[in-house]
């Protein structure tokens, strides 16, 4: 994936706010990228543009050579359907569907999906398939959200503060699940966080500041989740 001069402006009434002020980046297949920055630095907006959730106001974005910035709503829908898996800070599970049903919902629109059992096993929740979100802990809910994101077998997994609402123990469980996917299935994973410790398990870290990509660091020896703490 390659982004060139990505800009995003929001207009509220008569006020125009530029959230991204021209970002250039490249992401390679199978990389584990962490986007780090303070609140309001533009992390979520950039992730949303990468995930086809919204269009950039300016700039070019290519995924596997396809210009995402030229795609219409239908093209972006197919891109999200076939290529991207999302994990949200607040899990966004549908409360009146069980864990397995939340996953099956997404599986129904996928082309080459994993089975529900497989992904639940991957996140260590094979015994919780028939539980509703309200019957599970926060960590378990986030792992269901990860299972739901990966069941489509997407090449790109985008996670917005996946541990933001979790304590350290459950946070590590979730990060483990993400790293396992990255290692075993060679998925490209991009994780947003404002927690600098998590950056230690990435291949590369994008530092965002005031809507700009401040700098990129390469992590020579990524750590396992158990080796970090916050």
């Amino acid at each position, binding site marked *: 994936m390659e982004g060139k001069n990505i800009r995003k402006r929001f207009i509220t009434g008569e006020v125009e706010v530029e959230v991204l002020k021209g970002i250039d980046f490249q992401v390679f297949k199978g990389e584990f990228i962490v986007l780090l920055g303070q609140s309001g630095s533009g992390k979520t*907006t950039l992730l*949303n543009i990468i*995930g*086809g*959730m*919204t*269009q950039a106001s300016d700039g070019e974005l290519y995924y596997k050579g396809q210009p995402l910035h030229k795609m219409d*709503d*239908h093209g972006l*829908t*197919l*891109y*999200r*359907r*076939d290529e*991207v*898996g*999302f994990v*949200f800070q*607040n899990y*966004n599970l*549908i409360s*009146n*569907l069980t864990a397995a*049903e*939340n996953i*099956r*919902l*997404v599986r*129904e*629109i996928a082309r080459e999906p994993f089975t529900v059992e497989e992904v639940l096993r991957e996140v260590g929740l094979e015994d919780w398939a028939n539980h509703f979100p309200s019957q599970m802990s926060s960590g378990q809910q986030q792992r269901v959200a990860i299972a*739901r*994101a990966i069941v*489509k077998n997407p090449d790109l997994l985008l996670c917005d503060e996946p541990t933001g609402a979790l304590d350290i123990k459950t946070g590590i469980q979730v990060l483990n699940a993400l790293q396992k996917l990255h290692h075993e299935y060679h998925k490209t994973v991009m994780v947003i966080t404002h927690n600098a410790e998590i950056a230690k398990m990435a291949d590369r870290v994008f530092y965002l500041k005031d809507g700009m990509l401040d700098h990129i660091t390469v992590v020579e020896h990524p750590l396992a989740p158990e080796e970090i703490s916050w």
Partner: protein
Amino acid sequence: MVVLRRKTWRDIRENIGVYLACILVIAIGLLIFTAMSVMMESLERAQQNFYREANFADGFVKLTGYPESKINSLTYVPGIRQVEGRIVKDVRLLDQNQDSNRYLRMVSQDMTNPPQINKLHLLSGRLPADSKPEIMVDPQFMAANHLALGDSVTTIIEGNQAVFYITGTAQSAEYIYVMRTAQELFPSPKDFGIAYIPLNSLKALVKEKGQVNDLVFTLSSGTDFESVKESLQSELKPYGLQSIIARKDQTSHAILDAEITQNKNMSKVLPLVFLGVAAIILYTMLKRLIEAQRGIIGTLKAFGFSNREIIGHYLFYPALIGILGGLLGGLTGIALSFPFTILYNQFFVLPNLKSQFSLKYLLIGLALSLSFSLFSGIRASLEIIRLEPAEAMRPPAPPQAGKILIERIQLFWQLLTAQAQMGIRNAFRIKVRSLFNIIGIAVVFSLMTISWSMQNMMALLTTVQLEEVQKYDLKFQLSRLSAASPVRLDLSHEAGVSAVEPLLEAPATLRNGWRKKEVVIMGLVKDSSLYNILDKNRRRVEVPANGVLLSAQLAKALQVKAGDLIEVESPLRRDTLEDKKVQLLVQGVVPQYIGSNAFMEDKNLQAFLRQGEISTSLLVKIKQSEVARITSKYRNADNVATIESISDSSKMIKELMDSYNYVTWLYAVLGGITGFALIFNSSIIILSERKRELAALRVLGMTPREVLRVITSEQWTLYVLGVLLGIPLAYAMEYGLAQALSGDLYSLPSELPPIALLGAAIGTACSVLLAQYRAYYRIKSLPYVEILATRD
């Protein structure tokens, strides 16, 4: 999309009450639609079949006497296909109870050469034998008088007693709706029936030897009735022609047709009212559902669900409601059409009148219900397309906050509790939804006024007509057109009689250009004290010395107003070809609730008819204690055909109306259910939107009742605005209803009494209260700790 369906079912189960309420409102609309449509189709089918089977006449002629031998010659009149003559006579029944006033209309049947027009449908028993004292009667008369085959009835025919044995019951296409006069409004089978008697048996008893006093004819296809009428008028005038009327004006047919037309119109309008309210409920409910599931929609979009798939998911809710409501209403409507069609038999005796399962109306109903449901669903879910997934993931911008207009009235605002202030602000801030709810309440309110206004209309119809217009106690119908003075003189010397006035009722054709109406012109004496013509403020209007007064219905049909000229002709007028038509000045237009007449001064009408000082009846004001004596004395008089008692008619109509009062209350009940559904839905929406605030109030120590006030104050605000909007709507509905139900036979006054508005306001308030009562239990069981502990 198996899992999304599962989500739908669970969403529905969580708020089953609101969905059921909505299904119920749709079902009510569809029930009315299918029941009325199926009933009217059955009525029309039975009517058409019977008319075909009976070879129902296209024209009806009344005259004094026409030679039997000449009847066949009338077939040479261009356009006439068949013509037959009969003797038709109203005869009084002689009862043990001398005061009773029962009549039979004897209609002769040629047994040797059975009639080919208006052929009878034998329902039970056998045909009477020729020249024998045997008759068949209509089934309603038979049942109402507890008669059986073989029973006898004693009649007075032209002053002589005659006993007839009942051999069977039969039905004629001419008397599907049996009324003695068009003024009676309702059938009274106990007091009046039709008897079919062999021509030879009747001939032996009446003076019309070798003559008939009634003709019926059919037309060749493509013939214009008017041209035939013209030819017949000149042919029949010398024989005492009284009237030639087309099938469309024949009383029984006109009433049956009006019933079918009115109900068909109602079956189109009323369901739309209910479906409209259902659409409001569905729209607000789905809009809230979609707002509440904004995050879910964002998630689905993020995972690649297309707009079509997501909208399809949210349209499944209204589609399901539409189908279930449509099926429930449609099937119940069809089921109810069976007993209701049977009820119709009380008024309209039509052989083989029965309802049938109608796939057509079930499918039309379903399509109607689905269209309304899907329309509201599409309106509510359009925003989904607009939302970018990233935007959908964020909570919506909070509604604009600021002072509302009412807050500026400080004195009033300060009087309100904090909960009331919250509720009222909410009502004014969510403008579109509030507006929809106000419209819904206004519709419910105006629906409820129908109950009172219908009763008021019917009460006015009868009290004004029978107590203020017709001031006489008895009406002596003379047996032939004659000078009324001898009988008048006799009557005026009777004890207890305080006034006697002659009345001349003349059939006539009124024309204004191509518009024309067949009417009866009432010739009233100057300064009549027994028949009042009233204006719309119920002030007496004098019958004009020159020209004519027209009923409002008549003026509307002819498109004339006071000051216009109309052409008048009458079969009773002794005229020459050159001056057949006379122009009369319309002096005024007056409301008339029963019947649709023109009014002239009798001298004026007599001068127009050129038959001298003639009358058709006498109106008598008499002490009630003398009624029986006078009736008994004159009922057999040779020149008195019938004696009508106003108090009898009034009593009968009132009794009948009382027994049908429940039908008018139906609107109040249906309106109440709709109002309940509307307000209950609104409560659930407010609960879902504001659950965190309400939970916080509970945690702060407020009782469920205190928390409920947030919801109720919003709803009472909407209620007040809804009722205010409902008042003009109720007037419009009342006017529309009066117009739709008015015809030549009667015209309903459009007047909405304050009690109707008050009653509807109370009725609507009751449905609001009932819905709030349900909401109270929701608040009572609100898991406030859980709500506050979870994120939105």
